[in-house]
């Protein structure tokens, strides 16, 4: 078996040639090692790049690895050439995408229930951008299509896996603010009175 060092070096070369995210499985097959072993080597390599603060970063996307530029260097790259900026997603597209990302697999009906508005068009746009895709069908009545996010989504939003999505279940931030408001209102007898009067 090749030494760790030479395998890492080989993976580095392979990523360079491949350009696209390189599947850990494909890399593992080359050396006939397990996926986990290859994954660990990629992680080590990623760490090395990180420690040295290289201009190239190894990005992980759902068990694949890819060379990308360092975020901080964007300005310099843009000075060198003017890359076409992809248009940002609209607010509604982001909302729908967020629901799909956090609740997947999810049906259109569920998305519409949360937003209180139809989402066919937005979904169509997201599918076209390859950010969401069909993930099968629900067992519910009418067997509606279930949607989930794609690897492109992970890539474009900088997540290495779905587990990396920041938790949103704690709406504590929102609640805390609201709680303060409630207290503030309670202290104000007029405001408190108003509430009483209204109902």
């Amino acid at each position, binding site marked *: 078996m090749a030494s760790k060092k030479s395998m890492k070096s080989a993976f580095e070369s392979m990523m360079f*040639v*491949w*350009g*696209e995210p390189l599947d850990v499985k494909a890399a593992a097959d080359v050396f006939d090692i397990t996926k986990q072993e290859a994954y660990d080597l990629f992680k080590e390599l990623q760490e090395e790049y990180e420690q040295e603060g290289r201009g190239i*970063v190894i*990005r992980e996307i759902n068990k694949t690895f*890819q*060379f*990308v*530029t*360092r*975020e*901080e260097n*964007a300005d310099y*790259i843009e000075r060198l050439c003017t*890359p076409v*900026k*992809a248009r*940002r*997603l*609209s*607010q*509604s597209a*982001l*909302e729908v*995408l*967020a*629901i799909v*990302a*956090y609740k997947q697999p999810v049906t259109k009906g569920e998305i519409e*229930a*949360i*937003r*209180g*508005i*139809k989402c066919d*068009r937005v979904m169509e746009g997201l599918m076209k951008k390859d950010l969401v895709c069909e993930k099968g069908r629900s067992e519910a009545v009418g067997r509606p299509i279930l949607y989930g996010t794609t690897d492109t989504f992970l*890539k*474009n*939003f*900088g*997540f290495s896996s779905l587990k990396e999505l*920041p938790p*949103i*279940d704690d*709406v504590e*931030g*929102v609640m805390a603010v*609201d*709680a303060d*408001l*409630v207290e503030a*209102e309670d202290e104000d007898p007029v405001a408190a009175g*108003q*509430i009483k009067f*209204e*109902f």
Partner: protein
Amino acid sequence: MSYKVRLQTFEGPFDLLVYLIENAQMSIYDIKISEITSQYLAYIQTMQETDVYVASEFMVLASALIEIKSKMILPRMVDAGDGGVVEEDPRTELVQRLLEYKRFKQAAEILAEQEERCSHIYEKPQEDISAYLEEPDEYLRLDLAQFAAAFNLFIQKKQKVDSVRKHYTRIERERARMEERISYIAGVLKKSIGQFFSFKEFIHNKKDRYDVVVTFVSLLEMAKNRIVHVEQSSTYGDIQVSAGQNVDGTVSLDIPSAGLPDGYEEELMGKKKQEVPGGK
């Protein structure tokens, strides 16, 4: 329904409602339904006045708000079943939905930030690595544009070749012809009348199927004109050739001038000689 164009500020009824609640600095857990409902209706009114088509979804929420408002003035004590009473707030469901919506609105903001960050990261698209690949299958994975480009290239090449061809004629090397083969066989036989030859002896290049066929057809033609006498003892067996009665005669051969008759060639080249007609 493209509500989005008409309501630039709000993405949907919940978006509007959340905005109104936050704008009024109200707690989401203690919505002043009356106030919010009138604000909400006023907003829809403005939209209608400014000749904006109001999406039905906004109306649905408006009616839901009015329903909640009317329920608020009714006694809210509900029999819990076990003798006790529970106070039921008609706003509960709305609050739950608003909270759910806010959660995802917040998630959308996170995603927007992430998207912004990632727009500063550049990746290299995969270059053409087909030069490193042995499998021609790779070409089949081209997308439509690449495929069209490849096809155009092919057409251009073909046009170039065609234009060259226009000025030049291709000349094929002349292959063995029947007349030559007949005169050759006749010559050999004339010299040794009464002697038997094997069919194979007359074939110059035994590996060339064309040569075999020419020899065979020549022999058939000669047998027809009684220049040779052919015998085959068994199927697939060797053919014995000897001089026929007309071997000295000058029989005019009725054969086409250019090798095998039309179609003969392909027909015979395609199949293996299966059966050799018996000697005449």
